[in-house]
Structure formats: structure tokens, C-alpha cells
């Protein structure tokens, strides 16, 4: 089931957990043996601490949810001092999801994370739709993404995964720009920008009006984008967006993903990630695939 994503990032199976939905992994150890996962991606982290957005931060939608957490976190230094020592010896890949509100934040943060032995990769979040200048500006234009990826590339020497925003006209173009600027892989999709209204109160359901849509409802859009990007780029693609079971995960692999992430589904079944890994293995056995890599892009069109 091994997947080599390049530049030292090797997963024992294609299943990772998505940033912001799995805490620091510690929240799930009663339900999940982390050694059964390809990796976990910890909470979105920024150079400086952030209090995030006011409550309420979530609203349920048809087969999904909106959130506007707004990157609440205690900053990279706190992560290094307090959290890293607790989680660095997890028997799985621990990736850090790095976000920023200006170029400098990204570069300084990446530099600091580069020094952490047990973090094999950064997932660069250029796509969080919840924060003013929360990277969104970088993620939606080719020039923006080129700039932030190439600057981070200069200081970060391990695997650099760039997480793409789906809120764009042409996702393949953005992915190509990330690749050209030195990304080792791209992951997609982050949340779709959405909104919810309480008709009785005539108020938005979220404190900051709009938020990010995730969960099963976004799967068709995510799958389409993964397929478009995988056709366009040569670097590995990590697929996510609404994956709730092994069949969903296989679909993303067939569309061209080399690995997948599970997000919102962790809330519904805290043990879903290991079940997906097991189910993907069973799928391969059922259809006689020797290696999980045989699934990648195996869609017959």
C-alpha cells in the first residue's frame, strides 16, 4: 500500500487526515491507531497566534457543513515548543499545514518548520477562505501562487505540498503555476466558499457571514478538480473533499490522486480513516491489484 510522494515523503498507505479536522491527532487516539494511517496533517498554523473568528463558527448544510474557524492557533513557535514534542514520535507522518496573511509570514514559518526533524512535509495552505488575506489572495491567481510557493521553496527543503482553493475559474492553471514554482505535490480541494442564513432570525448563521463548505456535498466538485489537475501536472496530486468511505477514496485515486485526505467525515465517524485504509486494501485484493499505485489515474474514459 506504500505511496512515495517524492522528496522523502513516503506514506505506508494513501490515507491522511485533513488539516483542521483531526486536531493534532491526539484527539483521535482512542479511536484510531495512527500507525494504520499514511499521515496526519495538523491544524492550520500561522506564524503568529490567532484567536480566530467569533462564535458561531459552523452551520450544517445538506450533506455537509460550513465553517469559519478562521485559523485559530497559537502560532508556529508554540507549536514547536509545546505540541511538537508531544506528537513528534507518532508512528505516522505528521505534516504541518502552514498558513499566512503575507508572504513574509509564510517564509518565516516555513523556515522554522524546516528545522523540525520529524515533520517530513508542509502542506501550504494558500486557500483558506475564512481569513481576511488568509492566503486566499495567493491561492486564486497564478502570479500569487507562483510568488508564495517559490519564496517558501527557497527556505524549505523537505516535501512541499501546496493546498489549492477550489474557488477559481481554472484549477489546472493554478496547479501548473504551483508546480512550476517548485511544489513537490498539490493537495485539493480546500473548502468551497459558501453561506448560510437563518430565515427566522434574518441573520447569517456564521459570525463572519461566509465560510468554507466541506463534506459529502462537495465530492463531485473535488473529484472533477482532481481529475483536471492530475491530467495537467506531473507532480503527485493528493485528493480530498467529501471522502466518507473507501469507495470515495478509490474514486479519487482513479481520477488521478496518489493519496487522499479525510476531513469532515472524521466528525461523523471518528474511526473512519482506518476503515478507509482497510477498505482500499480490500478493493485492491478484490480486483487483483498488486500495488495500490496501480489505481492512480486508472479511470477508463
Amino acid at each position, binding site marked *: 500500500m506504500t505511496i512515495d510522494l517524492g522528496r522523502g515523503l513516503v506514506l505506508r498507505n494513501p490515507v491522511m487526515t485533513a488539516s*483542521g*479536522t*483531526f*486536531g493534532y491527532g491526539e*484527539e*483521535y487516539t*482512542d*479511536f484510531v491507531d495512527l500507525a494504520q494511517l499514511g499521515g496526519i496533517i495538523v*491544524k492550520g498554523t500561522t506564524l503568529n497566534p490567532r*484567536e*480566530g473568528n*467569533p*462564535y*458561531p*463558527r*459552523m*452551520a*450544517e*448544510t*445538506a*450533506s*455537509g*457543513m460550513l*465553517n469559519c*474557524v478562521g485559523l*485559530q492557533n497559537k502560532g508556529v513557535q508554540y507549536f514547536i515548543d509545546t505540541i511538537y514534542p508531544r506528537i513528534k514520535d507518532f508512528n505516522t507522518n505528521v505534516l504541518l499545514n502552514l498558513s499566512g496573511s503575507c508572504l513574509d509570514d509564510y517564509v518565516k514559518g516555513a523556515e522554522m518548520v524546516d528545522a523540525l526533524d520529524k515533520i517530513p512535509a508542509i502542506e501550504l495552505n494558500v486557500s483558506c477562505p475564512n481569513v481576511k488575506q488568509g492566503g486566499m489572495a495567493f491561492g486564486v491567481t497564478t502570479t500569487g501562487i507562483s510568488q508564495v510557493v517559490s519564496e517558501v521553496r527557497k527556505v524549505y527543503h523537505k516535501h512541499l505540498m501546496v493546498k489549492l482553493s477550489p474557488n477559481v475559474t481554472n484549477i489546472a492553471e493554478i496547479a501548473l503555476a504551483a508546480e512550476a514554482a517548485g511544489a513537490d505535490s498539490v493537495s485539493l480541494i480546500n473548502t468551497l466558499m459558501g453561506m448560510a442564513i437563518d430565515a427566522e432570525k434574518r441573520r447569517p448563521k456564521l459570525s463572519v457571514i461566509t465560510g468554507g463548505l466541506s*463534506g*459529502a456535498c462537495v465530492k463531485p466538485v473535488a473529484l472533477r478538480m482532481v481529475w483536471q489537475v492530475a491530467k495537467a501536472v506531473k507532480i503527485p496530486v493528493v485528493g480530498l473533499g467529501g471522502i466518507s468511505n473507501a469507495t470515495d477514496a478509490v474514486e479519487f485515486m482513479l481520477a488521478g490522486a496518489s493519496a487522499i485526505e479525510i476531513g*469532515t467525515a*472524521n*466528525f*461523523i*465517524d*471518528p*474511526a473512519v480513516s482506518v476503515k478507509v485504509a482497510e477498505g482500499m486494501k480490500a478493493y485492491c485484493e478484490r480486483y487483483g491489484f498488486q500495488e495500490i499505485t496501480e489505481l492512480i489515474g486508472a479511470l477508463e474514459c
Partner: protein
Amino acid sequence: MKQIADFKLVEKQDFGRSVLLQLRSEMALPDIQPGQFVQVRVAGSPATYLRRPISIHDVDAKQNEITLLVQQVGEGTRHLASANKGDTINMVLPLGNGFSLPGKGEKVLLVGGGIGIAPLYYFAKVLNGKGIRPTLLLGGKSQSDLLRLEDYQRLGETFVTTEDGSLGEKGFVTMHSVWQKQSFDKIYVCGPKPMMKAVAKLAAEKDVCCEVSLENLMACGLGACLCCVEDTVDGHVCVCKEGPVFNTRRLKW
């Protein structure tokens, strides 16, 4: 240790808008503190994508049984209330931190409003087990909101208010005469936010330690998503993990 477990609905009691669900697991129950809650999966309810947080109303550890008191407010709770005996209901439990136990000989008041009385039942039972007979002050819009009143009365002296005066004193819990007549060392509150704030204010005036149980909207229930935060003196903290019970001194109310 938290677990995900299938429970069977073994008994169900209908109170109109609310239902009592008695659920039995095949697995041994983990240790459960009063004030902790479960995350219930509402299967077969298309509008209910996420789990629903519900307080633990009662525990029978010997029978591996948990009881929930659920008020129907939307599609999820309506669907739960329509479950039939024998149905399987999946829950993640136990979640959050419960009420802090009072010191020896302390005089304790439990204040419940509406469906907020739910967690106080198991709490009062545990207190009884520790030799503490709490005073209970339960409020509702009208008589029909005061569920299992006789059962509560067995666990401690129980006062009642209703907004329409159909039972007990007329008005809100904060207006009840017991506040004039008795004093307490510790006050625990669960109910609608305005009611909890009013009681917290009263407690602060009397300089009595007060704990409230919050019901912020939740997604994960595990401290992973940061959706359920409450503003505290330590910044935004997760109600599902550091709460749902908070000492009001910690809150920015």
C-alpha cells in the same frame, strides 16, 4: 477512554415534546462523570449530517445503560424521538468534562431550565451516592416542561417555577423565593443561555461559586475542529473539550 458504540433502544418514554431514551450497549461502559455528553448519530435523517450532542441524563453501569432526555427542536431530535424499541443508535462517549464535585458538607443548588434539567438528574444521583442531598430549582414555561419531577424530588428538595404559574412559583428561576430563604456554597446551572446568565449574575452578587453547562453548536465533539468555542479569559476555548461545564469566573459573560 472514549468509545464509539452501538446502543440498542431498550425503553422509551414519551413526554410529548421530549422523550426519554434508555439505551443499552453490548460493550462495558466507560467511566462517566455527571455533566458529560454523548455525540449521537442520527441515521436515516437526510438533514442531519453531523452527530448531535446530548447530555447524559442517567447511567446504569451494571446494565451498560445510558439514558438520554431529548427535546424535539429540529429534524435530528425529531428523528431520534421517533426511534423504536430495538433500534440501534450509535454514540461516541463520554465527551467533555463534567461538573466539579462539591467539597464535604457544602450546600449545593442545582438549577435547571427547560431541557437543561437533563444532566442534573445523573449529577444529583451521584451526589446522593456521596452523601450530598442537593437542592434543586427547576424552571419551565409551564407544567408540562417539568419532566420526571417526582424522580428529581426523590434526589433532593425540589423547587419549581413556571412562567405561566401552572406549577410552583410563577416566573423565572431567578425570581424564586428560595434565593431569599436559603444560601448555598455551590450553584450548578444548565438551561437556556439567558437563564444561565441571569443565575450566574445572581451567584456573582452573592459571591457563590457557579458552574454552567454550555450548549454551543458542535461539529466534532472532540476538540478537533474548534467550532464550538466560547470566549473566556483564556481566549477561545472548546466547549466540547474544556467544557461543556465551566466555572462562570472563566467566562467573559
